[in-house]
């Protein structure tokens, strides 16, 4: 039931009691079914798993993926709306992928075994956590958590500890490049300074008495050690007692075949003083910082000659660089898996996966592009074959029939299409595609861990649904040669690389072209068809008194601009609405009227029907384009009105630039008339309320019914 974290459905599912009934019956029915957990991957077993995964992916016919995130929408008004234009839907996906973190990544390669006549699935559940292993810039890693999503994951016993303690970190390609660039420039700086130390070689001025005393003491201590060393060398290295200091601050060790003094328990200030002393007073001693795996160690090393010193420095430098590169490589971490999926060019299968793909792009490739077209082009380059099972289920007639108008959420599809795997029961009516699960050494052809909302299991379900769907639309895996890429199968071509940009409206984006198409009519009988919205007819209003309902707003405007002027009022949240006008001209007319009303403070404007909407003096209005600007902002305030303020909107009414002059000229004498008209209109309304009855808006009817209801009760 992957869909639970996909936005449109999530609210639904959260609000309802979660349909767990299915899974409990499943476990009851399949008593002897061998259940073992799927493969959980954390930091500790990542490297070994990656090696195995490589061979699995290489052999796979397709790879199913899924993920769990810390949230879906960063503010209520960022949820998917009916009135969202194509570009805004993308901005909402982008915002979600940028703000939230991926906690679990499920990867499940499926491979057809023609001898067993069964798929072999290897479900993997990666715990991912964006640890800051390498400091890239001054900023810290930060991500947003949506409280309800976290609570939802908790309900399914998500292991947050495993994630934060043991999750695998990652660097995106962009971050890796940046890290390597920084390393390179650090090396260059070091070369030009002819110094290999990580710190700068500026002398520390000795101002404090304590510093001077400390420096003297160190000078003495080092020269003692130095002299001792030379003596011992001639004497044959016997006296061990000298090498160990009482408080263990100095310890004689060997570093790259040279005697050295390791420095422990000094502050960084003291260490820089020691380094200075070494450089100034001892020609044959070298100060070296040596990074071991977990910590760094400061050493003063004895060198035979200037040449030897140079050699030592060269060695240390190379080691530094080597270890820095190793560190970057290790920090790439989980991205190795993504690189693997990309480089093998396998068919990727997800369920309603636009958000997953956006997360992959943002976390593992680089920042998301500002337009859907650019985003899509980039995704297509890295993953040429992506199939969304939700598209498949809705587009193919045979599959729609099989789904029998049931929900196309992942768990529903899984239980309908793969009852054998889901329920563990043999259904005689239809032959199912067999799936055998391999986890390490365990295998089972009848596997069901039942751990829903675990990315690895959800990926497994997605893969099963896909395999079954393929067989229903006539792909015979027995005839399918292993060398052939499933991604090029002609029966899949018409669904290939199509994703729901927004499931709620059936907006589909084509990853190859970036074109958007509305889902063709009648393809989904369950959903009602929405008329095409012309966005130039829409005004965005926010900051009005919070008690105003949509019906009241509509009434206000209808009284002013005519009873059929407004087709629909739609709440973004309690602070903002879209008002859809019947004609585009009404938009500028409304905006101008609002502006003039706000500028004049006479009695007429107070009596004006719109004054209800303008009450409080904080009502803003703008055209649809402003909505896009606000959505594109990285800020996310909970309320839309606060968001608009945070984005920096200072004006109260956005007059449409192209129309201002023209309409001002045309309407200037008219405005008074409009006000007048509406005044008389208002009087009529009081007398004859029935005019509202004819309006097509349900909300008005609702409010009317409410009025009659209350009239009725009071009349009893």
């Amino acid at each position, binding site marked *: 039931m992957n869909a639970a974290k996909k936005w449109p459905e999530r609210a639904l599912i959260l609000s309802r009691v979660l349909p767990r009934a299915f899974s409990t019956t499943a476990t009851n029915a399949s008593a002897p079914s061998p259940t073992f957990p799927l493969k959980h991957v954390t930091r500790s077993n990542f490297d070994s798993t990656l090696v195995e995964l490589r061979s699995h992916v290489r052999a796979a016919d397709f790879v199913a993926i899924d993920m769990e995130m810390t949230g879906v929408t960063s503010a209520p008004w960022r949820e998917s709306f009916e009135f969202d234009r194509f570009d805004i839907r993308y901005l909402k996906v982008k915002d979600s992928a940028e703000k939230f973190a991926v906690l679990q990544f499920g990867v499940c390669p499926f491979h057809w075994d023609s001898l067993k006549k069964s798929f072999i699935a290897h479900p993997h559940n990666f715990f991912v956590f964006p640890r800051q292993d390498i400091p890239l810039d001054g900023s810290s890693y930060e991500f947003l*958590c949506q409280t309800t999503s976290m609570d939802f994951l908790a309900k399914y016993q998500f292991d947050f500890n495993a994630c934060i303690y043991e999750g695998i970190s990652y660097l995106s390609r962009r971050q890796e490049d940046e890290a390597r660039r920084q390393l390179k420039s650090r090396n260059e700086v070091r070369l030009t300074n002819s110094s290999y130390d990580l710190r700068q070689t500026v002398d520390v001025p000795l101002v404090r008495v304590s510093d001077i005393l400390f420096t003297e003491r160190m000078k003495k201590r080092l020269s003692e050690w130095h002299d001792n060393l030379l003596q011992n060398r001639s004497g044959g290295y016997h006296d061990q007692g000298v090498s160990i200091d009482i408080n263990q601050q100095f310890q004689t060790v060997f570093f790259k075949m040279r005697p050295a003094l390791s420095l422990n328990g000094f502050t960084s200030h003291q260490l820089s003083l020691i380094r200075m002393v070494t450089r100034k007073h001892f020609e044959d001693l070298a100060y070296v910082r040596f990074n071991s795996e977990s910590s760094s160690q400061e050493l003063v090393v004895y060198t035979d000659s200037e040449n030897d010193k140079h050699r030592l420095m060269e060695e240390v430098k190379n080691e530094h660089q080597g270890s820095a590169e190793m560190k970057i490589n290790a920090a790439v971490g989980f991205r190795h898996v993504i690189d693997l999926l990309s480089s093998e060019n396998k068919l990727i299968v997800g369920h309603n996966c636009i958000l997953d793909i956006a997360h992959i792009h943002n976390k593992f490739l680089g920042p998301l592009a500002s337009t859907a077209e650019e985003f899509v082009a980039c995704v297509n380059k890295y993953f040429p074959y992506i199939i969304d099972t939700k598209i498949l289920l809705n587009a193919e007639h045979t599959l729609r029939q099989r789904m029998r108008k049931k929900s196309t959420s992942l768990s529903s599809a899984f239980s309908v299409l793969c009852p054998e795997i889901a329920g563990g029961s043999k259904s005689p009516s239809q032959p199912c595609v067999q799936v055998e699960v391999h986890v390490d050494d365990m295998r089972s052809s009848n596997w069901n861990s039942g751990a829903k909302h675990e990315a690895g299991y959800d990926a497994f379900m997605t893969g099963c649904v896909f395999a079954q769907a393929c067989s229903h639309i006539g792909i015979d895996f027995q005839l399918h040669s292993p060398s052939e890429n499933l991604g090029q199968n002609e029966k899949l071509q018409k669904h290939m690389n199509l994703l729901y940009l927004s499931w709620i409206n059936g907006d589909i984006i084509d990853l190859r072209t970036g074109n958007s198409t509305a889902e063709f009519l009648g393809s989904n009988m369950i959903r009602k068809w929405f008329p095409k919205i012309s966005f130039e007819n829409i005004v965005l209003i926010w900051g009005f008194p919070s008690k105003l309902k949509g019906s009241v707003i509509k009434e206000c405007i209808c009284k002013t601009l005519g009873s059929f002027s407004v087709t629909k009022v739609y709440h973004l949240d309690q602070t903002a609405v879209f008002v859809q006008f019947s004609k585009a001209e009404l938009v500028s007319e409304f905006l101008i009227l609002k502006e003039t009303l706000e500028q004049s403070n006479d009695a007429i404007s107070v009596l004006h029907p719109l004054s209800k909407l303008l009450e409080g003096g904080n009502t803003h209005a703008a055209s649809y384009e402003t909505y896009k600007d606000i959505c594109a902002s990285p800020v996310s305030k909970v309320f839309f009105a606060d968001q608009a303020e945070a984005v920096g909107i200072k004006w109260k009414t956005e007059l449409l630039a192209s129309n201002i002059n023209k309409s001002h000229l045309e309407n200037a004498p008219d405005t008074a008339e409009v006000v007048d008209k509406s005044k008389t209109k208002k009087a009529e309304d009081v007398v004859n309320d029935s005019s509202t009855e004819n309006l097509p808006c349900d909300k008005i009817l609702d409010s009317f019914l409410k009025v009659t209801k209350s009239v009725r009760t009071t009349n009893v």
Partner: protein
Amino acid sequence: MVALIRSRLFCTKISQNNNQHRLQWSVKQVTKSNFNESLQEFRSHLSSSDFVAISLQNTGSFSSAWHRVSSFDTPEIAYLKARRAAERFQILQFAVCPFTISGSKVTAHPYNFHLFPRDEFSIGMPSFSFSCQTSYLTAMAQQGFDFNACIYDGISYLSRAQELVAKVKLGNPIGVHDVMKPSSTPPSVADTIFVERVKLRIKNWKKACTDSSGRMKDEALIKSLRKLVLGSEQYGSRPCMTIDVCSERQVQLVLEMLAEFSDDLVALKIPTKGGGIQAVRVVLTDSKDDKSLFERELQNVEEDQNKKIRGFREVIDLISASQKPVVSHNSLNDFSVIHSKFISPLPFNMDEFLISLRSVFPHILDVNHLMKRIGPLENVTSIPAAIAYLKNRFFAPIDMEVYQRAFLNEGKVQGQTVLRICHLFAKLCYVLRITPGAIQSSDDNVTSLLDGYGNAIKSCFGNSHESVDGGIRIWTKSPRKVGCEDLVFLWGFRDRLSAGMLKSLLQGSHDIFSEEFDVCLVDKSCAIVAFMQPNLSQTLLDIMNSEGISGSLRELVSEGLRAAGYETYKKACSLGLWEVDLASSLEKAFAAPDCSSQSVSETKPSEIYWCSDLMINFDDL
């Protein structure tokens, strides 16, 4: 100042003491499951204690180097920074410790509450979402924090402001406790008709109810018919009727009318989602006794509901009601978080914040501030460092007695910091000769001891230094007073330039830099130049904007060097332009239109203390 008892002689003894405390203190861990019982216990411990120490564990604090409060921030800017952090991040642990000091003995009762802002009522509160910094979470992991326990079983809460909204949103019936005063305005004809109709309806309904109760049991059909005709419903086991109302006026009229009837009827107001009243529900009770029983029932239901709504905030309310002095280590950050999560959204300016906070917590003691009384120790900001500092210099034996049932000693005990704060505070009281009695008995005393409430908070970020004591100067570089107007922010210089390199670069670039000045880096993109002579900063800004700029400064400017005064910095903060790099924030502040209202309100010149070793430690990030 305080007599400084140099007491190296006693060091061993103290460190022995200290070693004892290095052992784990036990702290009561509180989650949703044991919250109610712990609350009772806490209430009694609180009432018997002199102080309450608090310590918070948040999911983050500052997103990039310059977002952190620094010594060049005026109090207003520091507040803006703290406000931003408080609004973004979430508290996961709230440790509270009521304690008493008598002589050198501290008696402490530490509690560590695990919080999670779960939306218990599905109303989008207390918080829709919150930010996490990975470094904070990993640091918590290193201390053995159990995230599962916190998210599964953390205690939720609502702030005082949210509680009001929640009650409206939940739409639970509101009991009418006190009899309404008769309305002053005379009833209109419509009113009279309305009242008469409702009266008649209630009479009929009541009659039917009492009649049927006397009669034999009706058949189901008749029962439902009666329900339909009379609009009679059940409220629990009692019959009730709903009267729809259109206005507050009608509510008033119905209630007044019912008051005349009041022998056995109880009225409940049914709110709408918008906050108004949509109906009055009238419940019929059997007798006077039954009526009071019902009223008590209602009250209990309401109280339970309120308790559930408040959640952890109950603890905050208890502390606030107790009026006990609250001891904190980083009071600006802690209390801005507390204010935003448990009281109401943070106001825009600092003075409003202080007034609002003061009404809730009249006595706040900041140990950081107290440390400053001993010596200007800008660098001793961490609790262990402060304790070590005191240990090395003063004889202040403190005996900690922690009264808490020992917990299963698995892993590290969470919430130890609050005990360290108690410990440090007790030591400070000992050294500064502050007797707990003095703090409690007289308000004046507290204010004189702590330089006033506002100062206590303002001085937490290092702009109030007492005279430097002779014995301590060696440990600190002496700060000097620099007016904010003498600071210039510079950016657009080469990457990876150190402050020293930048300074030497500037020194040769123009005559103006032949005067005494200082440079420090705020983050990798931006530096501050502090002029020791007045008016030079404006001259620099003018020069950089003028055509006649010459020499190597011209070259620097052509390479992209930009400059801005302190006002621009202030503007960036107050407009909330929290970019990653200060340089881009300042650029944006330049581009933003001037908001005259803000610049007018803040005309008073501010001063900060310039510390030449002011550096931002990038390792801290």
